[in-house]
């Protein structure tokens, strides 16, 4: 059975700290891994990773994929209160559909 596991389930840090969120997966015919940020209801896209070892960056956020060890990390440096959200990891299998298999998410709270 396909499985996506995120850790920690929740995390509270102070503004300015750096955080690392983890996502491990067991999926047959892996194609890509995506990270989303969910603040209210709509998940918003952050990164799509398809190749191992290539870091993707967007401002203070970065992510990398390890296809041998079957995991990805999402780093956020110099955190701000606006980074408070649920961070979702999802995996896509090769095949006719692009359906996303999500983890349960990491709830991140940034204290001022």
């Amino acid at each position, binding site marked *: 059975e396909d499985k996506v596991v995120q850790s920690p389930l929740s995390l509270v840090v102070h503004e300015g700290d750096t955080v690392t969120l983890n996502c491990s997966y067991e999926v047959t015919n892996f194609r890509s891994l995506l990270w989303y940020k969910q603040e209210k209801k709509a998940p918003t896209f952050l990164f799509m990773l398809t190749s191992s070892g290539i870091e993707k960056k967007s401002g203070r956020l970065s992510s990398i994929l390890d296809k041998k060890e079957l995991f990805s990390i999402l780093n956020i440096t110099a955190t701000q209160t606006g980074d408070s959200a649920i961070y*979702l990891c999802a995996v896509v299998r090769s095949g006719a559909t692009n359906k996303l298999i999500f983890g349960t998410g990491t709830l991140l709270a940034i204290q001022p």
Partner: protein
Amino acid sequence: GAGVSQTPSNKVTEKGKYVELRCDPISGHTALYWYRQSLGQGPEFLIYFQGTGAADDSGLPNDRFFAVRPEGSVSTLKIQRTERGDSAVYLCASSPGHQNTEAFFGQGTRLTVV
């Protein structure tokens, strides 16, 4: 519109009633997905449309759930004989339909069955 639009944003219904949830995808996106998200969980896949046809409905939990996309644009998720366990946020997403493109999500419909 600029993004995926879902209506209503909130729906409260009595157990046993029928509900329809609407999704208006990004213009030109051929792929459309419905997901359901319960409290404290990640979204769970329900159904995928490519154009007008349901290419994958393996996530629909039972035959009370049905979805259509008659003209390849707007989609409606229909739930018959609602149960309290159907309470969740129903998310719709669309994508251009090519491989390795991300899906864009709507704001969701929060369904509460009382």
